[in-house]
């Protein structure tokens, strides 16, 4: 996890499933008002619905805290984007496959 002055990055790796839910839940903490939030999933090869549920919770907590939130997905591996589409959640998150575009979004006025 990297701290930046205008945004915070939470980077997750590997295969995210039920076995890692507690670890993911601990990583996805908003901690009240503050910088915009980027969850970097560009090195994630698999995520099941338990992880999507954690992302939905995190989205809600970020919104409650007034913090912008975006997901960074791999530009080459479309699996996570397809999972979100199959879950009918393709429009539920601000999705990017380009880090610069994600940071531009996060730095824009709310």
């Amino acid at each position, binding site marked *: 996890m990297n701290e930046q002055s205008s945004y915070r990055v939470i980077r997750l790796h590997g295969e995210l*499933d*039920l076995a890692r839910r507690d670890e993911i839940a601990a990583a996805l903490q908003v901690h009240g008002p503050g910088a915009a939030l980027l969850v970097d999933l560009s090195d994630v090869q698999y995520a099941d*619905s*338990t992880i999507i549920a954690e992302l939905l919770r995190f989205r809600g907590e970020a919104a409650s805290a007034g913090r912008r939130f975006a997901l960074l997905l791999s530009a080459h591996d479309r*699996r996570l984007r*397809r999972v979100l*589409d199959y879950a*009918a959640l393709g429009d539920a998150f601000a999705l990017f496959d380009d880090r610069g575009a994600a940071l531009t979004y996060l730095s824009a006025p709310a």
Partner: protein
Amino acid sequence: MSGEGAVPGSELRIVRVAHVDAAKPLRHALAAFMEALGIERELREDIIIAVGEALANAVEHAYDPDRPGTVELHARSAHDGTLLVDVYDRGVFVPREQGTPGRGLGLRIVRAIAREVEIDVDRGTCIRMAFDARGGGQSFAM
């Protein structure tokens, strides 16, 4: 998608203790089975997504954590190029964490990917999924 030389009847059957760590190796075993069948990568990935949800459901909901049972993965190729995958547990649905966002997503994902889904509840839960796929014929025993 590779369909030439398809030999129906290829089969994979694995039984594991339904612990949270069981889902990943079961997904990997199914992925290797499908690769050997010649199923194309994106379709393999989607089938893994769907079957992964069924496995997660069994691991999370079938058993009391203090009394774990088994989860069985059974995959076989049919004559018409269909891949049939069953995920079977012998437990009783144990609900957890009511009100958590995203509950019900797993079955939605399964239904979006599989051509057919049946859920049989009789001395356990069997989620039967049928996917459009084609491949060659190899036998697996694991």
